[in-house]
């Protein structure tokens, strides 16, 4: 496909054009905090800060998503005398009875057309990875909630011109100008963007009068930007063998050392472009209620807590181990895909800067090596190799 060009001063007009037919989401700075928010004419898109605080996953997989509505009739039901009495429980407690005559159950799934502009190739790759679990891959269930939004969404990614020291997309098969999941790739060059539509959706979204064919010089500059960016992404660990080593190191003592400073919050999972776990809750007010799902995370101590009081991952170290094992072992076994796109948000936003690269260097290495090196929480961590000399 031909490479097009959009001048910087035409960006607002382009987004306004898109906004006429779909919701447009873009990274927007509020008090210096960059988050993906609805874009409206007049709002400034912030592409200078490389990564918005959170990946844009909430637009495909909202943090709170009501998917079922139901209502009860208040009539008194006909009770068979021979049945055990409802409400009076065995331990003698009297409980408030619910009205049980359900009259309506309706599935909810809103999926208006939307366009996410300004996400990075790693963010888009996060969606591709999530597609496996939500998409019925391997004969598992197909999630209509996620997929309806996924299909109604166009991803217009922007090449990472200046990767951060915490980026490691190339280490796990990605690229600062990656195409995976991207409908059209924008690359910042002098005075504007080169635009490469990669899919039909991308073609449709970039069908705009102010887009002209890129000159050879512009195309060459974009190509150079991509090469430069790619070479500047650090490769902090070797991905080959990580899965097998995580499996072999499952009982490794270094997990304990690595998780010492973890506070067991959910920040890493909520900023992550590919973490997808959720909880399901019901709410009922008088006769009307809904069932909704809401993000949950494996660091939540109640996540696996069973009614009996038993908790398979009771300790912080169990929960900590689960996150990394899930991303690089379990998910791979089940869906033939990693569950990490190397954006580094979990490193940047972790309150105690737990470093996924360090975890993989230690636990993703052949068993025995990290222990031999002293195991101590600290000595295992290598300083970032690039960056300072750049």
């Amino acid at each position: 496909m031909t490479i097009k060009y959009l001048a910087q001063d035409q960006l607002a007009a382009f987004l306004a054009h898109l906004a006429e037919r779909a919701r447009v989401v873009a990274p927007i700075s509020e008090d210096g905090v960059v988050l993906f928010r609805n874009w409206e004419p007049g709002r400034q898109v912030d592409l200078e800060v490389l990564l918005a605080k959170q990946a844009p996953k909430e637009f495909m997989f909202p943090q709170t998503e009501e998917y079922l509505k139901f209502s009860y009739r208040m009539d008194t039901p006909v009770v068979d005398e021979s049945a055990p009495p409802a409400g009076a429980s065995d331990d003698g407690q009297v409980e408030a009875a619910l009205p049980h005559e359900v009259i309506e159950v309706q599935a909810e799934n809103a999926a208006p057309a939307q366009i996410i502009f300004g996400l990075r190739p790693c963010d888009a790759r996060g969606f591709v990875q999530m597609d496996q679990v939500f998409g019925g891959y391997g004969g598992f269930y197909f999630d209509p909630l996620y997929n309806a939004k996924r299909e109604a969404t166009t991803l217009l990614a922007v090449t990472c011109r200046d990767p951060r020291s915490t980026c490691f997309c190339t280490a796990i098969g990605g690229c600062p100008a990656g195409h995976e999941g991207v409908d059209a790739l924008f690359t910042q060059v002098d005075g504007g963007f080169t635009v490469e539509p990669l899919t039909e959706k991308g073609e449709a979204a970039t069908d705009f009068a102010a887009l002209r064919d890129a000159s050879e010089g512009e195309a060459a500059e974009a190509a150079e930007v991509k090469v430069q960016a790619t070479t500047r992404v650090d490769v902090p660990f070797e991905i080959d063998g990580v899965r097998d080593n995580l499996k072999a190191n499952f009982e490794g003592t270094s997990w304990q050392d690595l998780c010492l400073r973890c506070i067991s919050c959910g920040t890493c999972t909520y900023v992550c472009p590919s973490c997808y776990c959720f909880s399901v809750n019901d709410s009922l007010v008088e006769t009307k209620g809904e069932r909704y799902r809401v993000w949950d995370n494996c660091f939540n101590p109640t996540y696996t807590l069973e009614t009996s009081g038993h908790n398979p991952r009771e300790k912080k170290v169990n929960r900590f181990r689960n996150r990394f094992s899930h991303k690089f072992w379990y998910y791979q076994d089940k869906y033939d895909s990693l569950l990490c796109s190397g954006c580094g948000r979990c490193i940047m936003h972790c309150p105690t800067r737990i470093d996924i690269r360090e975890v993989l260097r230690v636990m993703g290495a052949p068993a025995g090596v990290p222990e031999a090196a002293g195991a101590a929480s600290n000595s295992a961590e290598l300083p970032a190799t690039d960056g300072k000399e750049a």
Partner: protein
Amino acid sequence: MSRQDEIRELARVALSTGRVDYFIGWREAYNPSEVVPAFVDEPDSVDQLVWNDLCAHNLTTFLKRKMNDRPNAKVGICVKGCDSRTLVALMQENLVDRERLYVVGVPCDGLVDRRKLEKEFSDEIIDITTSNGTVSVTTHQGLTRDFPKADYLLAACGWCRYKNAVYADDVAGPPAEEADRHAKPVWTDVEAFEALSDGERDAMLEEIFATCIRCFACINVCPVCYCWDQCVNRSRRPELVSQKVDAKGNLVFQMVHMLHVAGRCPSCGACDRACPVEIPLSLLHRKMNKEIYDMFEFEPGAKLDEMPVFQCFKIEDAFGD
């Protein structure tokens, strides 16, 4: 000896004499602009400990129940003045075993607000050093800029009256020069917010709390908030706090946290720093402490022999009608 060397020496002695099983201090993370909690269990490893203007982490968090899995270990810990108040708050409730604790007070002259510096650059910060009141910041692209430290202090440091620990077994170096602890606290930030009209405050609070993602970082990092799997904020039945993540529910969620730590929270600022979406929680906990001071002239965690004000009462309290 520099304070950093003092800390290392105290840690080395404590570890080699068996006074502690491990020692919690600070160390550099993946680059020198990031400082993280360090857990040292060998005397030979103490040289990784650092003390600089980025040592903001309140390490007393790691003394909480269920935080780490060695319940009977003897622990050495570094505390700044503000951190020591959370430690004292825990001691007032008998939640830490003083017999197992070795506390190193670290006098502090105010720390740098990394997030405030981040706002000065679109690029990533990879190095921060300070000397003579000047902060030098280097970015990933290699740009270096200087800032006056006084303008980039953590908000909590600006009005700090507890530069020295209120409780410590040993002190790393000479005490910091401290203004009068008994002077009236300063609440300029809260007063500025109070001065807004009701409508303005309402709109701002909604906007601020709409961004909350309920990651529980503020709660888990809080040294005096220790219920874990019993947290009322996670209760589904009864659903005491709405499990849906929306602006109103989020404010209730945060208020529940605040009111549960009322009288024990000394506004150490750990929650503000931990929040990944930078919600200024100080708006709530500083206001709460302002009112507590006004009601009781009480400062949480200031004195070992005091009780948190909401766990006791006086018959002559003059509240209500």
